[in-house]
């Protein structure tokens, strides 16, 4: 397919890897903050192409993985109600809550459905006026415009039976949280290209400056990721800490203005709890009061449900790049994609699932 296959050329990938090896004179730790990139790195073995002095560390880049367990419990509580059609992206279905996942609710007779787009949930609300349709709005900045449009459209159509369980999070505050962690050993970041497509590059500039780290907005194909690594290493070797754009075929420096306007119309910035990290101030989105009527948390009174993460799961350390999935004693033994202890083993983009799938046991 155009704009995919040409970025997977093996000879070109080796050329980039050789340039990285020539450039890197010291050990550098780079963090990618995108589950899609983590997956591509493991799938195509890009980490194995890199010289030993350049390490890729997988950050909190998977929205499914960073959704706190209590949000799952709230989803499960709503989905189990009679009269509710609960809609979610497929990757949330098997993420364990405290007692069960959404798939078990479905098995017990709940009407839980996978949708491709939040707009599909709006269409369901329209065609089922006697049912309550709830959409589980998870994701980063990339997904927020679609969720914002779904809410705005439901408001425009006067759909009183539509609501959203919002668990949207923002990438730049998570990068700051990683940098502020005393255990942090990250020298540079690959920022997710589709997040930057929406927000533009400006949110990253103060971070690059304050913490003196290069941040390179990077695409998702092997050549994109390797070029992102090379640009980042070049900056590090030259002592620069700038925001650079590897993925200019999609990312404009100013971002996607219409999408940002729609996000700001419907959502406001709120503190959010991240699985394994805890609450990060101003790190997520919640509905503005003009759209509060569409908030499933208040409509179904589930906001008071709180829960703690399972003790054995080291998702927090994995998500912050402090530990590799294979360093977890439960990895591949008591925790597998069939019987996951935590979200990073469930989502196809979770670091644990990627390590398991591509047989990285070391």
């Amino acid at each position, binding site marked *: *397919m*155009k*704009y*995919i296959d*040409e*970025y997977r050329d093996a000879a*070109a990938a080796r*050329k*980039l890897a*050789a*340039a990285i090896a*020539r450039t890197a004179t010291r050990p550098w730790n780079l963090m990618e903050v*995108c*589950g*899609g990139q983590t997956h591509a790195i493991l799938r195509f073995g890009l980490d194995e192409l890199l010289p030993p002095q350049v390490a890729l560390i997988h950050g909190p880049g*998977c*929205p*499914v993985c960073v959704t706190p367990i209590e949000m799952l419990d709230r989803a499960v509580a709503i989905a189990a109600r009679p009269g509710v059609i609960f809609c979610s*992206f497929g*990757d949330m279905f098997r993420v364990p809550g405290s007692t069960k996942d959404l798939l078990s609710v479905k098995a017990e007779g709940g009407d839980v459905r996978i949708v*491709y*787009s*939040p*707009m*599909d949930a709006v269409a369901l609300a329209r065609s089922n006026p006697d049912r309550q349709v709830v959409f589980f709005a*998870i*994701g*980063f900045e*990339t*997904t927020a*415009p*679609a969720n914002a*449009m779904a809410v705005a*459209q439901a408001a*425009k*159509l006067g759909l009183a039976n539509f609501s959203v369980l919002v668990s949207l999070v923002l990438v730049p505050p998570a990068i700051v949280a990683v940098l502020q962690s005393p255990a942090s050993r990250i020298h540079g970041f690959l920022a*997710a290209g*589709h*997040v930057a*497509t*929406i927000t533009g590059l400006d949110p990253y500039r103060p971070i690059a400056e304050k913490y003196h780290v290069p941040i390179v907005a990077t695409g*998702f194909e092997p*050549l*994109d990721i390797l*070029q992102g690594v*090379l640009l980042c290493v070049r900056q590090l070797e030259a002592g620069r800490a700038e925001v650079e754009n590897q993925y*200019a*075929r*999609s*990312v*404009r420096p100013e971002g*996607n203005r*219409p*999408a940002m306007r*729609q996000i700001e119309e419907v959502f406001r910035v709120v503190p959010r709890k991240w699985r394994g990290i805890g609450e990060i101030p101003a790190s997520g989105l919640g509905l503005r009061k003009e759209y509060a009527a569409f908030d499933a948390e208040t409509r179904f009174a589930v906001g008071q449900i709180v829960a703690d993460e399972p003790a054995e799961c080291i998702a927090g350390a994995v998500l912050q790049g402090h530990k590799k999935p294979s360093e977890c004693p439960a990895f591949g033994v008591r925790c597998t994609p069939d019987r996951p202890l935590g979200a990073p083993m469930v*989502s196809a*983009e979770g670091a644990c699932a990627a390590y398991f799938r591509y047989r990285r046991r070391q």
Partner: protein
Amino acid sequence: MCLGIPGKLVETYAQDDLPMGRVEFGGVRKEVCLAYTPEAAVGDYVIVHVGFAISRVDEAEAREIFSYLRQIGEAGAEQEGGGGRG
């Protein structure tokens, strides 16, 4: 989660006051909301995420990486003392 797939915009229309389009991904066609890419025209490639086009692919920028590869190829050949091009 932030998966975005490039596809070719083959048709545009409006539905419930929203600009919509049909986008082709290697033979599969999907309905996509174009509210966030007002600049996209039939024949353009757009990157699609959960039913929304989030950007129009810039063709000139898409080729950049290949001229970058030629540059580093030449630099590498020189550094390794080959002196040859290519």
